[in-house]
């Protein structure tokens, strides 16, 4: 049990606790706050695996951008009045049962898939460095990702136009 394992346990606890609290808390504002911590825990998990750029993107785009957008949307609409208790008790129980059964199935598959030999060790430079990332992202080689990169840029432009078109005042 070294510091690497302790860090993993802390991050896993944060992720599990905040993702469960996101869906059971009564106030939607609190749900957004707990989702923020779940996303930050995921970013920490990326850092732990040595994917530092991915962790930085996760922190900036998800935690910095999307959560702020959600908080603004909650405050602009009357979403703060959302209550989970409007459901009937049997519907909540059925949903919980379905989720637990699904989780049990997935956990069974994961634990019987013979992944015991796969362990993650503390990362070094060879995992993913920035020059590999840049070369892959902007090359037209067979392992290059220039086409999806450009497709995402067109998608983001379309989303900007669509967002302005939908949300503008008439």
């Amino acid at each position, binding site marked *: 049990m070294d510091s690497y394992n302790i860090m993993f346990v802390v991050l896993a606890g944060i992720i599990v606790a905040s*993702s469960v609290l996101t869906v059971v808390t009564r106030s939607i504002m609190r749900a957004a706050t707990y989702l923020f911590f779940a996303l930050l825990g995921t970013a920490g998990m990326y850092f732990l695996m040595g*994917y530092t750029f991915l962790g930085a993107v996760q922190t900036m785009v998800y935690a910095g951008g999307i959560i702020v957008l959600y908080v603004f949307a909650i405050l602009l609409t009357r979403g703060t009045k*959302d209550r989970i208790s409007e459901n009937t008790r049997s519907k909540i129980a059925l949903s919980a049962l379905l989720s637990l059964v699904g989780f049990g199935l997935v956990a069974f598959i994961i634990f019987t898939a013979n992944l015991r030999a796969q362990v*993650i060790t503390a990362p070094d430079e060879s995992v993913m460095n920035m020059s590999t990332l840049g070369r892959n992202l902007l090359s037209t080689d067979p392992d290059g990702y220039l086409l999806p990169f450009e497709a995402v840029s067109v998608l983001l432009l379309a989303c900007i136009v669509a*967002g302005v078109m939908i949300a503008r005042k008439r």
Partner: protein
Amino acid sequence: MIQIEYILIVSAVMMFAGIFGFFTRRSTLAILLSIELMLNATDLNFAVINRLMHTGGHEGYFFTLFSIAISAAESAVAIAIMINIYRQLKDTTADKLSKLKW
């Protein structure tokens, strides 16, 4: 030394918490929060599988990168639609939105 199963279990917990929220929430914004939770779980899975089982390539890494960009765009457009609905109908609860139904 972390075994891959534990990270996959953490991601599965996140996924099924999102599914539970998707079923039980009433407000459309809370449903979107649950969808973000599910997308995040799949992103974590892609990164873990790429890191531990396919160390030579970077497919899962780039898939996660593009998935984050696409989910950001998706939630921006969804929130624009929510704000427009709220402006027209003064309510974003999923049960009440039946104007387009028949």
